[in-house]
């Protein structure tokens, strides 16, 4: 039993041995193998073990032996078409004895370089002078002819063989077919019916079966096999065209791309590509010559072809730095090797793919979201460049994302969205960004399901209570029922930019109202406006607290109602310090009920600045009024009045105030024209009877903005001055201001500086002196006196002219009036400008009157 098992195992091993390793040539069933490396003499050595099948060269002498570039591998035999030939056998006619024991299958493998296509014998195994023998292989034209078993039937290859070129030929027979392989490639097969070959004989090279028709060729690495060869055997023997010596393993060429890795993503546009070049086998006298990098775009378009030359040895590597743009690429390497007689090239094992683009590290989002909630979407990626123009595209709408660097090549794209109420159900989104102005990337599509958000009265669907409202009588502190004439609950889960509203009312008295939320694991931000009452016995109150967060830990709220016999309506009117109505003030009233501080009123002032509460006038109640920008106002009182006015102070900005109220000022010098090279006292006197002036001052500058001097004071009005020499300035501008209630009010005035060299006697000097004398006071004539004087001048001038020349037309009179006012106001500037009036307002007014009269005259005329 044991022996049976052993034999079975041996058989299996042999079977596996014959089946599992057919991928490599085995030098078995080699009837003879001749490399023709002898170099001289007449003996042709058989390379198989024991050299049992040596051959004999006849008539070839030393010229038949070739080597080097004339041969395929090592040495070779050159048979001239004269009388050279060689035979392998005990004699010319007898083959070797052991060949008789071989079966009928055979194969011939050899390298041949034919010098002519003359029909001649190449290899024959026959007795010369007789028929074709076991086989005769001859050449004619560009084909080879095989005849078997003395039969004249010809078996040829398809296509053509070459002349003056080495070809590797395998021709074989297995009783069913004859196969040809040319240069390692299957060429043809033909069915045969010969089962037994003729009697054995020697193998003869270079002559026909009949001893004539010498061939003219060189032959190398001749193998005579007593079996057929398979395709792998033939490929190994062909050895990529370099041939294979007896016993050798074919040389395996390995072009291995070591960097980048296949299907890798590179994070830089500049990368080192490495290729390892090696070879295995027994014929390692090859050396690497060059290596060519081939890079294609993913669509097959060539991107780069770079050849590295100057290689050596049979094992080496190449490195090349490539700078490529963003995108996806294919890479392969084509390396060439050679020795003294043969060269060939080989591609890498396969195309590698790589990309210079971003790789996604992670993406974070909630698989399920809710209406009105804040949902955050985060994409973490490794990128060769800073992403720009990054967007989250949610259901087709693009939202700009925040791009954050996490260090190195790691970036985060993030976006927080407030989920609108229109996206319930399945939603899809993806991210997109640019690595450059021409290269855009995007992720795959992600999914998110958005659920409803509901805040409403508890029912079969809404089961988790968030808010429970009960009612009590404020006087008795006992529980009572209530109805809800109207209520709205504005609620949301996120930041409030998206909200939902619950509108609820109930006309039937209820002891309590419970509101639930769905989803029930979220915090709801709710702003209730809840009107409640109990018939006519308990007037309506409003519960309107600030925005409040409610969770599934139920919040219990007790609202108080006050009987109609116990309360009064009290109106609170809110105003600011300027007596302006203030709306949007959060008002509340609290009082202690059974030792508990309880809110009994809450509301917000409307556009009329008022809020009305139903309160108990018998108890002290604390009222608080809050609005952003104002100081919180709290008052404790017994609300016996029907109305109260509350003034909120401390507002940061008040609009609509008249900051000129109660303000007056005097600017000197009064004259409009100043003499050059003269020191003047520029002063500014400010009076304020209403506002508290915090600061006032002035600066003197030139037209180009150069500040000459300035003065200021932090008092509530007063006098400030500076002395300034007018030098040769042409114009001096004063910017003067005052600050009240943090509001800056400013004005500008100016003086012309006149060269007084030749104008000391002009009539302008008269009016300048008149102006300054009137300002400083002359004979007690003040501003009113000035107006009176000018009035008399106007009256007398117009009166005299009218009387003298009979001028009664309103147009003429108003024209004269305009002329005189223009002279006194603009020319000599005797008329002062009222505060807050535009300069020369009286001139404009008189001009307007003149224009109106002219138009009227034209219309009637």
């Amino acid at each position, binding site marked *: 039993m044991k022996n049976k098992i052993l034999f079975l195992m041996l058989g299996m091993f042999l079977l596996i041995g014959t089946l599992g390793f057919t991928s490599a040539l085995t030098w078995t069933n080699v009837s003879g193998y001749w490399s023709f490396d002898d170099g001289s003499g007449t003996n042709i050595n058989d390379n198989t073990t024991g050299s049992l099948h040596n051959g004999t060269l006849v008539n070839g002498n030393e010229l038949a032996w070739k080597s080097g570039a004339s041969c395929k591998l090592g040495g070779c035999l050159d048979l001239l078409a004269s009388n050279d030939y060689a035979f392998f056998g005990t004699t010319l006619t007898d083959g070797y004895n052991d060949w008789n024991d071989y079966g009928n299958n055979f194969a011939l493998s050899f390298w041949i370089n034919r010098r002519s296509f003359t029909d001649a014998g190449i290899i024959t195994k026959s007795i010369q002078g007789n028929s074709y023998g076991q086989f005769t292989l001859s050449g004619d034209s560009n084909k080879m002819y095989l005849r078997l078993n003395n039969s004249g039937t010809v078996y040829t290859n398809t296509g053509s063989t070459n002349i003056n070129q080495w070809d590797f030929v395998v021709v074989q027979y297995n009783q069913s077919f004859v196969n040809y392989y040319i240069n390692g490639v299957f060429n043809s097969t033909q069915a045969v019916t010969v089962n037994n070959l003729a009697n054995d004989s020697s193998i003869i090279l270079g002559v026909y079966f009949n001893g004539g028709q010498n061939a003219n060729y060189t032959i190398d690495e001749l193998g005579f096999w007593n079996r057929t060869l398979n395709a792998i055997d033939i490929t190994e023997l062909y050895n990529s065209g370099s041939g294979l010596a007896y016993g050798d393993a074919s040389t395996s060429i390995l072009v291995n791309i070591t960097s980048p890795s296949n299907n890798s993503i590179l994070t830089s546009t500049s990368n080192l590509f490495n290729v390892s070049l090696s070879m295995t086998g027994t014929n390692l006298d090859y050396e690497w010559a060059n290596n060519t990098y081939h890079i294609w775009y993913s669509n097959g378009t060539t991107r780069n072809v770079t050849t590295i030359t100057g290689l050596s040895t049979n094992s080496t590597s190449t490195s090349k730095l490539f700078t490529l743009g963003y995108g996806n690429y294919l890479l392969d390497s084509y390396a060439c090797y050679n020795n003294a007689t043969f060269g060939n090239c080989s591609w890498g094992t396969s195309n590698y793919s790589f990309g210079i683009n971003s790789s996604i590290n992670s993406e974070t989002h909630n698989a399920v979201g809710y209406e009105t909630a804040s949902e955050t979407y985060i994409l973490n990626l490794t990128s060769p460049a800073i992403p720009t123009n990054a967007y989250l595209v949610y259901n087709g709408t693009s939202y700009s994302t925040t791009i954050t660097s996490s260090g190195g090549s790691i970036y985060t794209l993030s976006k927080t969205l407030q989920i609108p109420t229109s996206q319930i159900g399945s939603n899809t989104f993806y991210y997109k960004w640019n690595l450059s102005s021409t290269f855009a990337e995007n992720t795959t599509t992600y999914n998110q399901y958005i659920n409803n958000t509901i805040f409403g009265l508890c029912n079969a669907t809404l089961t988790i209570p968030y808010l429970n409202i009960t009612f009590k009588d404020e006087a008795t502190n006992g529980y009572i029922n209530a109805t809800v004439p109207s209520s709205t609950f504005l609620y949301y889960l996120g930041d409030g930019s998206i909200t939902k509203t619950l509108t609820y009312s109930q006309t039937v008295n209820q002891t309590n109202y419970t509101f639930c939320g769905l989803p029930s694991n979220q915090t709801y931000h709710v702003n209730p406006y809840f009107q409640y009452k109990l018939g006519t016995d308990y007037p309506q109150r409003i519960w309107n607290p600030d925005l409040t967060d409610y969770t599934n830990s139920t919040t219990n709220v007790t609202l108080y109602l006050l009987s109609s016999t116990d309360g009064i309506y009290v109106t609170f009117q809110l105003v600011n310090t300027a007596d302006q109505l203030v709306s949007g003030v959060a008002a509340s009233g609290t009082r202690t009920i059974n030792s508990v501080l309880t809110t009994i009123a809450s509301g917000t002032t409307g556009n009329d600045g008022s809020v009305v509460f139903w309160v108990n006038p018998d108890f002290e109640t604390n009222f608080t009024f809050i609005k952003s920008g104002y100081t919180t106002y709290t008052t404790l009182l017994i609300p016996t009045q029907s109305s109260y006015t509350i003034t909120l102070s401390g507002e940061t900005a008040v609009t609509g105030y008249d900051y000129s109220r109660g303000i007056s000022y005097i600017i000197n010098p009064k004259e409009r024209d100043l003499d050059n090279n003269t020191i003047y006292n520029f002063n500014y006197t400010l009076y304020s009877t209403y506002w508290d002036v915090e600061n006032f001052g002035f600066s003197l500058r030139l037209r180009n903005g150069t500040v000459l001097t300035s003065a200021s004071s932090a008092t509530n009005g007063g006098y400030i001055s500076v002395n300034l020499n007018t030098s040769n300035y042409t114009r001096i501008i004063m910017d003067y201001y005052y600050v009240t209630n943090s509001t800056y009010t400013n004005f500008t005035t100016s003086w012309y500086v006149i060269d007084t060299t030749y104008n000391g006697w*002009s009539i302008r000097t008269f009016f300048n*002196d008149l102006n*300054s*004398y009137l300002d400083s006071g002359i004979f007690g004539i003040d501003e009113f006196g000035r107006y009176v004087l000018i009035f008399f001048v106007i009256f007398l001038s117009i009166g005299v002219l009218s009387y003298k020349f009979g001028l009664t037309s309103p147009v003429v009179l108003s024209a004269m009036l305009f002329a005189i006012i223009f002279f006194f106001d603009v020319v000599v500037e005797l008329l002062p400008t009222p505060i807050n009036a535009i300069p020369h307002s009286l001139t404009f007014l008189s001009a307007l009157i003149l224009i109106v009269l002219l138009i009227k005259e034209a219309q009637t005329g």
Partner: protein
Amino acid sequence: MGLAILSFLAVLIIGLMFVNFLLPEVTTFRTDMSCSSADTISDGTKLLCLFGDATVPYVIVLIISLGIGAITSRLNI
């Protein structure tokens, strides 16, 4: 007509030559009276300064009037 214009020009030229003599006197008058210091001089001084300021313009207006008078008398207007 030509004689009228000549008369006008003669009056104007002679008159302005006369004005030249007034100019330094007016300047001296203004300096001595301190007419520019409105805050320090008395009301009477101010009034005198105003008269002094009006002197030259008044004389110029007078000369022009005389010149126009010369033209009109020549032309018997």
